[in-house]
């Protein structure tokens, strides 16, 4: 093909015409779905702003949400502080720390699982002639890679909450359900991201090691993974944030984390306590955000692209 004198501004008549069709269909579909959603009558906006709901909301904001000791005696900073401290000592501290430890344990497990799955996901490793660009892939290796990918997809497809709900029924009475659910979901996500990172590594150094006689396992463990590690850690800390948020919620299934105490306060109609516990959760999530943000900046300083 000769290069045209003026490059076209839009790629009209581009070879991948059908790909733009998908975008058009998706756009129309999205608008259609949103319009349908609001007009279907399933969303009761009128009811939400109705008089009795407004009364509920008013009572909630002016009475229920006010810290109990301040309702009668009036507002004092010391009164507020005593209340916050009392709640923190009563249930808040333990629930907050449990939430944090659930997130840490499940992310460690997810990371370990992802490290084990990733080489199988990476098609440059999961092939008959690893790290070399040529040669047959081998039907067994094709399937190994496909199955690894399928495991990752299925592990992360269902929401953590549903996974934990099912685990609680089988393993009641410990923190395992929450940890397993979070580890599964995040392990699936990380497994695929790690695998793709391994797949996209600069290939020539690894090829060189291969031609020097390194085995698949040796090169993967001692060259590929160490080179990919900065990127792995970036993904890891990015997921850690989300995992802490999610860990607060899983308590609602009976694991004594923040969610459990929040649900408990709600069932006692102690909405002031409930909101304070939500506040403890916000604090924890913001701290986790800051930590992982800081670690990511620190890692990125040196992480080669």
């Amino acid at each position: 093909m000769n290069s045209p004198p003026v490059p076209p501004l839009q790629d009209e008549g581009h070879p991948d015409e059908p790909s733009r069709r998908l975008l058009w269909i998706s756009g129309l579909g999205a608008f259609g779905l949103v319009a349908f959603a609001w007009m279907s009558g399933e969303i009761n906006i009128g009811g939400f702003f109705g008089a009795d709901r407004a009364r509920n909301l008013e009572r909630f904001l002016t009475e229920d949400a006010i810290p109990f000791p301040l309702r009668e005696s009036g507002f004092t900073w010391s009164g507020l502080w005593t209340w916050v401290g009392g709640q923190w000592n009563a249930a808040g501290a333990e629930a907050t720390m449990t939430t944090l430890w659930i997130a840490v344990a499940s992310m460690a497990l997810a990371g370990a699982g992802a490290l084990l799955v990733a080489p199988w996901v990476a098609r440059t490793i999961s092939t008959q002639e690893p790290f070399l660009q040529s040669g047959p892939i081998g039907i067994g290796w094709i399937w190994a890679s496909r199955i690894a990918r399928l495991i990752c997809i299925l592990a992360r497809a269902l929401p953590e909450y549903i996974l934990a709900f099912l685990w609680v029924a089988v393993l009641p009475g410990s923190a395992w359900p929450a940890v397993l659910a979070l580890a599964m979901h995040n392990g699936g996500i990380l497994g695929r991201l790690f695998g793709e990172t391994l797949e996209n590594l600069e290939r020539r150094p690894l090829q060189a090691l291969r031609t020097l006689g390194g085995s698949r396992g040796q090169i993967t463990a001692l060259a590929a993974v160490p080179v990919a590690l900065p990127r792995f850690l970036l993904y890891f800390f990015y997921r850690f944030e989300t995992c802490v948020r999610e860990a607060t919620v899983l308590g609602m299934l009976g694991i004594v984390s923040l969610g459990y105490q929040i649900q408990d306060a709600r069932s006692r109609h102690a909405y002031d306590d409930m909101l304070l516990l939500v506040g403890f959760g916000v604090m924890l999530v913001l701290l986790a955000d800051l930590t992982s943000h800081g670690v990511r900046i620190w890692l990125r300083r040196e992480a080669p692209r």
Partner: protein
Amino acid sequence: MDRHPPKPPPRGLILLGIGLLGLLAAFLLGLRPAGLVPNAGGLRLARDFFSAATEPAFSWESAHLAAHTTPFLADLAHAALRTLIFAAAAMSLSVLAGLPLGILASETWWRRSSFKNSRMTAAARGLQAAVRIGIALMRSVHELIWAVILLAAVGLNTFGAVLAIAVPYSGTLAKVFSEMLDEAPRHSAKALEGIGVRPLSVFLFGLVPRALPDLVAYTAYRFECAVRSAAVLGFFGYPTLGYHLTLSFGDGRFRETWTTIYLLLGLILFLEWWSTAIRRRLVS
């Protein structure tokens, strides 16, 4: 300044630290390998549950339910539709709120706008910081916690479910949008600025279009997440797929549970395929 390259962070140590913290967490939570072995009841339940996996139900498992209500599949399809409806409505609100918030939280907006003298810049900084804090607060409360708060404040209402998803999702979209706007290529904006285009127009026509593919691809991905969230809201009494899941599981109608799981799985896998396809076409 420093002739030696900076020392790389000790990644091996980080890895070791993660492992040790994980073990410490397991110790503090009282997680023991023995805890992974279900007791007799758990084992029986697991066996019953998984043996139902191969024969999902296509009609109500209990005659009592079948006599009074709509056919099972119709009911389930309705729940799936409601899951999509809640997710779509929530996403539309999230985009409407997240886009302006994201613009206000970005660096580029304040740099490109007419806030040029230093006093105004301080005010702009303050406003930007306020927006960023607001976004962080919206995001840091999980959608299910928003749902619980809204349940306590106004009671069970479907618009409440939409809001519960929309509030944290607006925050997430705003944060990611602002990062994408700040990282978008600058060439067009610089060219427009060079020929004297007004700052607002530079932003709207030079910068936003360059970030748009990323914004759209991310929104498509978040829709997939919103469907998950909407399904889970069913656990709190909203009529989505999660509602069927918890009711049928609680009653031991495991074949119905599996039908629900397969439907949700199919929905999510389809949306995942779709959002990946969109991303591949939009983002090189």
